[in-house]
């Protein structure tokens, strides 16, 4: 890439500029993260100890720990993924594959997704409250919260999965069809495995969105800090806890930072588990033997 050799050329300058820009951008992202986490860690880490991780909150969160909040968060996330992942895969297949002959239907679904992606969380909260808590009678519960979040994360999951499916080379699809594979088999053995990295990215983004959500959960999963015993219990998510401590509990901000620290660690664990699970090429192996 560098100049001075036998086949040097001035144009290489552009490549170096590109390189610099690209490194700067990446460095910028890392810097933003370091600011946010650094700040949070510095204020929060001193509060984190074993007791913090193993007891329930008391005194509006200023004392005690956050174990019930962590459990609620994980339960909400589980509900969200259970509902959203199959729905997202189905819709992505619809958009990428089936809908060629039904472009009007596809356009409607695509509009729906664009709008859903931009609906403010408060509107989702009121919607989830009306639909799940009241009409379906689930009340303030982890189930209501998880289902509401599922609606919120659908756009990002579907769009990424759709793109991943679309970017599978047409030649592969042709070759699979030429072997007489049915559409189901083609999807399962050829397109899904090839689309796994894109879908993993969508999954990670969706998990992130779900863990970050506050307003929609206040109205659906609720505010209770008890240890939940079933998905029908109300339960407070980590992000709601952070919000409450930072905004409504005087002197709550160290605890807010500590909770945010735990949330970040949890994110790292979950997303790396999710992507390593998908990347372990199990899906590739499946069709080998």
């Amino acid at each position, binding site marked *: 890439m560098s100049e001075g050799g036998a086949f040097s050329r001035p144009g290489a300058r552009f490549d170096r500029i590109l390189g610099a820009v690209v490194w700067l951008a990446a460095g910028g992202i890392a810097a933003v993260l370091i600011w946010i986490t650094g700040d949070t860690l510095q204020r929060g880490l001193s509060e984190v100890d074993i007791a913090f991780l193993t007891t329930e909150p*008391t*005194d*509006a*969160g200023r004392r005690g720990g956050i174990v019930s909040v962590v459990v609620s968060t994980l339960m909400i996330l589980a509900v969200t993924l259970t509902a959203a992942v199959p729905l997202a895969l189905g819709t992505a297949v619809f958009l990428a594959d089936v809908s060629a002959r039904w472009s009007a239907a596809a356009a409607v679904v695509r509009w729906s997704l664009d709008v859903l992606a931009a609906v403010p969380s408060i509107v989702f909260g009121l919607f989830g409250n009306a639909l799940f*808590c*009241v009409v379906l009678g689930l*009340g*303030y519960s982890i189930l209501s919260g998880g289902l509401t979040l599922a609606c919120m994360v659908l756009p990002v999951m579907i769009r990424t999965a759709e793109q991943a499916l679309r970017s599978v080379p047409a030649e592969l699809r042709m070759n699979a069809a030429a072997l007489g594979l049915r559409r189901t088999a083609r999807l399962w053995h050829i397109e899904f495995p090839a689309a796994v990295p894109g879908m993993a990215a969508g999954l990670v983004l969706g998990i992130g969105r779900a863990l970050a959500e506050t307003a929609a959960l*206040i*109205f659906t999963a*609720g*505010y*209770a*800090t008890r240890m939940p015993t079933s998905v029908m219990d*109300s339960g407070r998510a980590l992000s709601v806890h952070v919000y*409450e401590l*930072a*905004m*409504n*509990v*005087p*002197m709550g*901000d160290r605890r807010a930072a500590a909770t945010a620290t735990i949330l970040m660690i949890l994110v790292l664990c979950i997303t790396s588990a999710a992507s390593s699970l998908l990347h372990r090429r199990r899906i590739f192996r499946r069709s080998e033997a």
Partner: protein
Amino acid sequence: HQERTIAAAAGDAGSGTVRGELTITGSSTMAPLVAEIARRFMARHPAVRIDVQSGGSGKGIQDVRSGIADIGMSSRALQAVESDLEVFPVAVDGVALIVHRSNPVSELTPEQVVAIFTGKIRNWSAIGGPDQPISVVHKAEGRATLEVFLTHFQLRNPDVRPDVIVGDNEHAVRTVAGAPGAIGYVSIGTATADVQSGVPIRLLPLDGIPADCEAVAAGRFPMSRPLILVVRHDRRPLTDVFLRFCRSEQVDDIITAQYFVPAAR
């Protein structure tokens, strides 16, 4: 003696225990307080389950009306159209002016406050402070503290010339703490707590009365808002038991710990 009364009120005199479930929604300001009260109540009556949810005063009132919640929490007085509900004050929250800690101004007359908030005084030097422009931190319309403030100083909101508009109390505190020339008004409870934890703000006395919880408790502090529980007339007995608990001395320490002042009984 009191235990027996409660049991009787709950309609469960035979076993001597109170049982049932309560749902409480509403003001996010009150939610931490009521959640703590509910926790103590549940500790005394293990057969009772109380779910406290937040979501805003409006939501609380609406939920009580529609029967989704047994009790609503509101950090503002009810309006005339909401007179179908019954009100139980639990605590009082004073509202005080705050400035940055480095600001030497020790007290403002009502006229000065009005002049500052209507943009007639734009520099602290005009009222004996340093030569620094005044940044007026005002609450967003609809906030209870805003109503209290406007009513007390007999201001009309369109006349106020804010430099910054904020929402929650913490938001106002953060804004003033970040700008040495700022002035704002917040809940005394929040501000006191923040001062204790080292946030660089100072509460200004009003009409010569210091802005602290004692003054509010004594009913001397002129600017305050009620924190109330609202219920329907056709409520269940358990609701009454809990309301009575909320208004008893047994929760005074909780109210104080949340930097509010118990309501007059």
